[in-house]
């Protein structure tokens, strides 16, 4: 453990009795946390456990209702992010806050220009960036435009921004969500360098593997409370998962080997060009058979969304797609109804933007996309709302949606329960093909287990499933075959038992991987 503590006993960060309520929701309840300087401290917890709220309080976005913050032993008030920066706290957000058309240098000095003229600031920043790059392996071309950089590079710019503002404490919120495994490894090397130079790092993540790999200590949050803080060396992923959920969790999925049948989905030479004229799918071909799950791995933004869009009927494309041997018309826009009629059910990547109408009640969402179904109609003119409500109540019970109230707005359910509503809608139709995007994004561990079991059950019932996910763990544990997408192409196909994260990671980065 390089450079940890070093005999110095004053904590870098000390939170005492922090509480914060939003209306009736108690987001943080009497939270105390001590982080020693020169360490990497992980914070894990399910969605809605209060991690982001706590960090937002530390960064001055929210004001705590009660409690005290001490930085390097001194009690301070952090009314806004300027004060946080002055106290030496830097934050790297999950969604980058960069000005896309500006250069790296311009983004770094934004908000901390020295005077009215830019030139001296830029010159100073250029020198500083060179030094930081050398110290921490944070190499970025200072004159590159942000819009031309990849996500890994953008993240480095965010880290540089914080360091340029002389941050001693760096908070990273889910930093690896958008990175390839190789990029994530590089990020961890950077973090280790920062630690060895005495910086303090708080890492918020839901990936227990990362916690185990890099942190010195880890805190677990559950329902707004800090339930444990332990030395990483003295815990295990199983124990952490149990602490997060409050009960025993199966981290590994039991499933029978697949018994694939006939070809349900055949895709040949699929091409999609977006409005800007950029080709997003460059000749994708794949097959999914009845009773198997084909997992599509890849870093977000390599054409997976377009593949789902074409199959779900929201994007026109060229090429050939056959469902149960029948070719479907790819030229039409808004073909969602035709796709559903052809037997394709679609669990979209973003349930809040696409999969649900957040203002609609649960029962209105339970027929969304299938509202032309005769079962939804009382007569030619009117819908049969009572029947839909009854059907919804039944499905909510099947899928353990909590609370099981058909008359609650979708927005009032937690992420996991929202996803269960979408899954109930799509799975209970017994589709020939289910296409699923990020089935467990933003879903708590307990619900992940449930959702995975439902997908396996659907497979075992003979449906073909195309699974798109950026979570390699999920791909590896659910899929019967794995295809890796990079830059609009399928880089290769593997069986889960003959591959590993490293091999997939190489293909996700555009290399051919190990010789198959």
């Amino acid at each position: 453990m390089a450079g940890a503590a070093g005999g110095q006993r004053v904590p870098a960060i000390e939170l005492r009795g922090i509480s914060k309520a939003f209306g009736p929701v108690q987001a943080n309840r009497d939270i105390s946390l001590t982080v020693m300087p020169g360490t990497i401290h992980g914070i894990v917890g399910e969605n809605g456990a209060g991690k982001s709220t706590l960090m937002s309080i530390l960064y001055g976005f929210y004001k705590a209702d009660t409690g005290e913050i001490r930085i390097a032993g001194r009690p301070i008030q952090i009314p806004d992010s300027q004060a946080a920066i002055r106290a030496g706290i830097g934050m790297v957000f999950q969604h980058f806050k960069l000005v896309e058309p500006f250069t790296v240098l311009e983004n770094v000095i934004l908000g901390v220009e020295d005077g009215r003229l830019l030139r001296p600031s830029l010159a100073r920043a250029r020198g500083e960036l060179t030094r930081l790059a050398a110290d921490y392996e944070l190499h970025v071309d200072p004159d590159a435009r942000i819009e031309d950089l990849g996500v890994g590079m953008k993240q480095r710019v965010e880290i540089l921004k914080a360091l340029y503002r002389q941050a001693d404490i760096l908070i990273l919120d889910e930093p690896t969500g958008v990175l390839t495994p190789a990029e994530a490894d590089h990020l961890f090397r950077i973090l280790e360098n920062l630690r060895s130079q005495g910086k303090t790092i708080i890492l918020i993540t839901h990936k227990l593997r990362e916690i185990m790999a890099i942190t010195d200590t880890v805190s677990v949050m559950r329902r707004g409370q800090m339930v444990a803080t332990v030395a990483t060396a003295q815990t295990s992923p199983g124990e952490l998962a149990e602490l997060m959920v409050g009960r025993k969790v199966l981290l590994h999925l039991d499933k029978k080997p697949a018994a694939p049948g006939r070809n349900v989905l055949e895709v040949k030479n699929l091409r999609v060009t977006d409005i800007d004229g950029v080709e997003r799918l460059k000749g994708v071909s794949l097959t999914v058979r009845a009773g198997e799950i084909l997992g599509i791995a890849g870093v977000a933004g390599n054409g997976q969304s377009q593949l789902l869009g074409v199959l779900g009927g929201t994007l026109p494309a060229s090429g050939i797609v056959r469902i149960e041997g029948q070719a479907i018309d790819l030229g039409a826009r808004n073909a969602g109804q035709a796709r559903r009629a052809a037997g394709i059910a679609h669990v979209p990547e973003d349930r809040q933007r696409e999969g649900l109408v957040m203002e609609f009640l649960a029962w209105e969402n339970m027929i969304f996309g299938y509202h032309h179904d005769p079962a939804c109609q009382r007569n030619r003119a009117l819908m049969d709302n009572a029947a839909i409500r009854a059907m919804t109540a039944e499905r909510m019970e099947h899928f353990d949606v909590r609370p099981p109230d058909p008359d609650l707005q979708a927005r009032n359910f937690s992420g996991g329960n929202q996803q269960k509503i979408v899954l109930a809608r799509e799975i209970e139709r017994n589709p020939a093909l289910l296409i699923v995007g990020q089935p467990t994004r933003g879903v708590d561990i307990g619900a992940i287990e449930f959702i995975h079991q439902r997908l396996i059950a659907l497979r075992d019932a003979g449906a073909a499933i195309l699974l798109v996910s950026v979570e390699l763990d999920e791909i590896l544990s659910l899929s019967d075959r794995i295809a890796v997408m990079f830059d609009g192409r399928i880089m290769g196909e593997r069986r889960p038992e003959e591959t590993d994260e490293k091999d997939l990671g190489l293909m996700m980065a555009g290399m051919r991987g190990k010789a198959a």
Partner: protein
Amino acid sequence: MREAMPKWADLVLIPLVSLVLAFALSALVILAIGEDPVAAVRMMVSGALGSTYGWGYTLYYATNFIFTGLAVAVAFQARLFNIGGEGQAMLGGLGVALICLSLPWPHWALALPAAALGAALFGAAWAAIPAWLQATRGSHVVITTIMFNFIAAAVLNYLLVNVMRPIGAMDPATAKFPPGTHLPSLHDLLAPFGFAFSRAAPANITFLIAIAACVLVWLILWRTRLGYEIRAYGHSEPAAIYAGIKPVRIVMAAMLISGALAGLMAVNNVMGEAERLVLNAVEGAGFIGIAVALMGRSHPFGVFLAALLFGFLYQGGAELALWTDIPREMIVVIQALVILFTGALDNMVRMPLERLFLALRRGRA
């Protein structure tokens, strides 16, 4: 997560508190110009509600506002801001005039459905062009409907001056409609029941059609597949596309219904009251409809109540201008305050009330 407030507080208490605040501020303004606010309120209430004559005018105005308010509300359910109610109502008037003058109608019961159909068709047609431009070209419907208000005014001006004006007449208006098209007023409708409603007030059978329109709009929005799709599209376009809902179809449907409702207003003011088509017959009711829909939370029942309120303000305000030294502009100020408080400053009332309800709940728990 629980709601911060019970539903009744959201739907009833907030508009009520907003209204009280708006009237309180209006009272201050009246004080500031040296008049007596209590006397003013008394005058408004007695003028608008104190006689069947006052009621007749209040309900007449309210009828106009129900139609234009529903028009804005339906479009807004699809998140389309139809500001063209004014122009659509003008064209609705043209439809009514053409139908009433084209045939020797034997009885109003025949003329009424025909004229209503004409009003709805002309109003819908006038909304169709901006709707089509929005749906297929992305031209913003706010801009195009406003422009179509001016075009509608110019078209009517031309037609009334050059084409439809009877030979020898001096004012830009059509001929009087034949007696077979004259609609029964509330006086005529209530007389058989032994109720003596004012003969001079313009409120007529169209008020009942307006109520029927509220029910119909509610049915369409919350009980039919089309309404379901309109509301889904209004809440989230990406979700609608995911579900296979066709945006062009929804934009067209919502705007055509909206235009038809605005056009229907002409049955009240052109056929029911003026009994001929005059220039500027709509008198700003198209714009009042925006405020009515805003205050009515784009819900037919809310629109109905808000239209009654604005009918009261209109008639009460006219009485105020007639009988006191308070200028007519004052009533515009009061209306503006009502719109400001019930629409734009919603959160100003909502947040303290939410906090109050939370405190109450904590106290009980």
